[in-house]
């Protein structure tokens, strides 16, 4: 079994109007090389589900987003995401804005093949006001409590970035926080992972490595070898986020063409060279808070 694909191959599985989920969290472990590939394609009108960072901003800057299902969009070190902000303020995108935990519940519900999961989260807030499609459910037990029925968020495609993979799609997330990548994979029809390293199964390290395997290979449709593929976001433990690049990206909101000329419409390898090469990127220290 060989699931290895090129970045371009992944586009064959994506269509305009699709619902895609993007793993990672804020400016952490985002599958940015796959996101850039989408930005460079004809695909548009996507519904995107994300704990958002520059993945969302970059897709917005390329007018790829029809609707965003999100809890936040942030670059962490730069709290507000300029490109997302501009798209939202210019009314270019629809939104379904949810509490972070409701978003998790929506993915988990899809992952469990349930139509919804009940939650109290959202009561008393304008999350309900602005999402009138959210419905309610009453406990059938004697408490009779009313809950929000958070609907399943089903994904056509999930895009994730991992530290290690073999060609069968056995993946490992070595960084200490897997975020909600496992749920994205389970909520999706097809999952594509970009991986820092492409190794043999033996090189994944047997039992010691297997504890980093956060979801099983049957969920993985394709694997793309993408060293430093999360840049400019972080990929613990290999590299931190590239603050200088994130700042340049953020500042490019008024003159995005300058940024695009420098960094977009390139192969992944050429992009990595344009931002200093893998040797420089892997010297970027992990963030400390």
């Amino acid at each position, binding site marked *: 079994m060989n699931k290895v694909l090129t970045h371009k191959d992944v586009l064959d599985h994506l269509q305009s109007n699709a619902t895609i989920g993007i793993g990672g969290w804020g400016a952490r472990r985002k599958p940015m090389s796959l996101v850039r590939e989408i930005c460079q394609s004809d695909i548009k009108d996507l519904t995107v589900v994300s704990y*958002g960072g520059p993945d969302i901003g970059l897709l917005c800057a390329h007018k790829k987003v029809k609707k965003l299902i999100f809890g936040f969009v942030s670059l962490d070190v730069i709290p507000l995401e300029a490109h997302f902000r501009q798209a939202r303020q210019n009314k270019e995108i629809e939104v379904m804005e949810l509490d972070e935990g409701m978003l998790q519940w929506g993915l988990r519900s899809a992952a469990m093949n349930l139509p919804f999961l009940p939650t109290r*989260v959202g*009561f008393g*807030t304008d999350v309900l006001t602005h999402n009138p499609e959210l419905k309610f459910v009453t406990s059938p037990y004697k408490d009779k409590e009313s809950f929000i029925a958070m609907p399943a968020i089903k994904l056509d495609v999930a895009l994730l970035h991992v530290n290690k993979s073999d060609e069968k799609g056995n993946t490992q997330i070595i960084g200490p926080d897997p975020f909600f990548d496992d749920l994205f994979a389970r909520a999706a029809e097809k999952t594509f992972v970009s991986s820092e390293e492409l190794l043999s199964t033996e090189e994944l390290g047997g039992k010691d490595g297997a504890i980093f395997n956060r979801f099983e290979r049957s969920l993985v449709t394709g694997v793309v070898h993408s060293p430093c593929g999360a840049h400019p976001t972080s990929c613990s433990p290999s590299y931190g986020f590239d603050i200088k690049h994130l700042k340049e990206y953020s500042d490019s909101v008024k003159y995005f063409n300058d940024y695009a000329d420098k960094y977009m419409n390139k192969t992944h390898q050429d992009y990595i060279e344009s931002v200093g090469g893998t040797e420089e990127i892997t010297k970027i220290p992990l963030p*400390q808070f």
Partner: protein
Amino acid sequence: MSDSISLAEICISQASKAWQDDGEILATGIGLIPRIAAGLAKLTHNPDLMMTDGETYLISEPAPMGKRDSSADQVEGYMSYSRVFENLWGGKRHAMVTPTQIDSFGQTNISVIGNYDSPKIQLLGVRGFPGNSIYHKNSIFIPNHSKKTFVEGEVDMVSGMGYKNKELSNGIFEIKRVITNLGIFDFNGKNNCMQLLSLHPNVSVDDVITNTGFEIAIQSDSITSMPSSEELVLIREVLDPQGIRNTIFGE
């Protein structure tokens, strides 16, 4: 102490008191002053508090501000984002946050300023505010007390619920303490109205009233008590030896 006590140090000391009766829960201070304050609470009146390293691990001693050798952290547990959610749904957490807007109901906003469908300013998004507010206690730190933060009427997008919907949280909803650059407040006035507990040095009741967009009660107009010498040593030498706190008020 030879140096004079700064406003940041007064706020840190006062903010730390938010967690004093909480027992063994997760203290989350988001932002500079709340984070130093949570650390101070752990080192003084509530050593049982759990705290993270700002990333994924629970550590035994509060992480000092600024660059540090994190390999020296004494890790005692794990707190991924998934675990943070599980923890907060169980209620064993008290966060201190800095919302962009607060109203008289204690409702908070970090989502948008202006009309939701045509925002004047897009902020972060509601993040975990809906869940945090319904499941556990929260406190608030505001460095720029004004009518723009303490707004008239209701906040533009209710991200964290308020006292008017308290029954929806099974009675859990609480804003424990509000620390601003002008004074200390809580919401224990009549009908949960916000009330002044003390004024920082050189601040008048009038300053507070003219900078707050809704009516507040004056429980006390005494001067905020100063940090103890023990607290000052901990703030200056242990929690923030590089003086990063001074950037908050440009001190």
